[in-house]
């Protein structure tokens, strides 16, 4: 039952969300670095990376918990 609920929460929308963040960050990075604000560009890259990392870490924890339950650890 738990597995089907998780399946509904995640899916292709998670991939699209991360892809959108990546494209947005790269566009912002280019705009900022063209306008001469290289330090802001670096910060934007870092912030985007951290946001994506937080999303990914949540799912990794989810994956490991599921594997632990599934393989009788």
């Amino acid at each position, binding site marked *: 039952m738990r*597995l089907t609920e998780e*399946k509904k929460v*995640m*899916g292709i929308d998670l991939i699209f969300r991360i892809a959108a963040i*990546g494209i947005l960050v*790269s566009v912002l*990075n280019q705009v900022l670095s063209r306008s001469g604000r290289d330090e802001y560009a670096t910060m934007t*890259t870092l912030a985007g990376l951290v946001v994506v990392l937080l999303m*990914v870490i949540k799912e990794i924890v989810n994956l490991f918990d599921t594997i632990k339950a599934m393989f009788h650890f």
Partner: protein
Amino acid sequence: MLLDIIQIVGLGIAATIIIIVIKAQKPEIAIQLSLITGIVIFFLIAGKFAAIVDLLGSYFDKADIDIMYFTVLLKIVGIAYIAEFGAEICRDAGESSIASKIELAAKVIIMALAVPIITSLLELVISIMP
């Protein structure tokens, strides 16, 4: 079942195209995308896998085989899967040395887990010998 595999293949192709688009600008986010794609595909098949494991477990019960062996077998499969997952992510990111260390660690842990099975086999051999 056919619908499921179509879904998974479509997801994989869509994710691959997105990853190729993003990789040129932001390779670090592309790696995380491939990671999350792997996780999503795992969750798509997780329910079916749990059903298969339940089936195998019930037959182990019926055949009166010690459930410990089944658990060890399942743990080995799980360790192999996790290690392969991590190692492939590392290898995709260009860190093949870390990937081979992960694989080595998985092999060592699997050997350690298989110790009770090997011990029982050796004891059986010794008890058969005159």
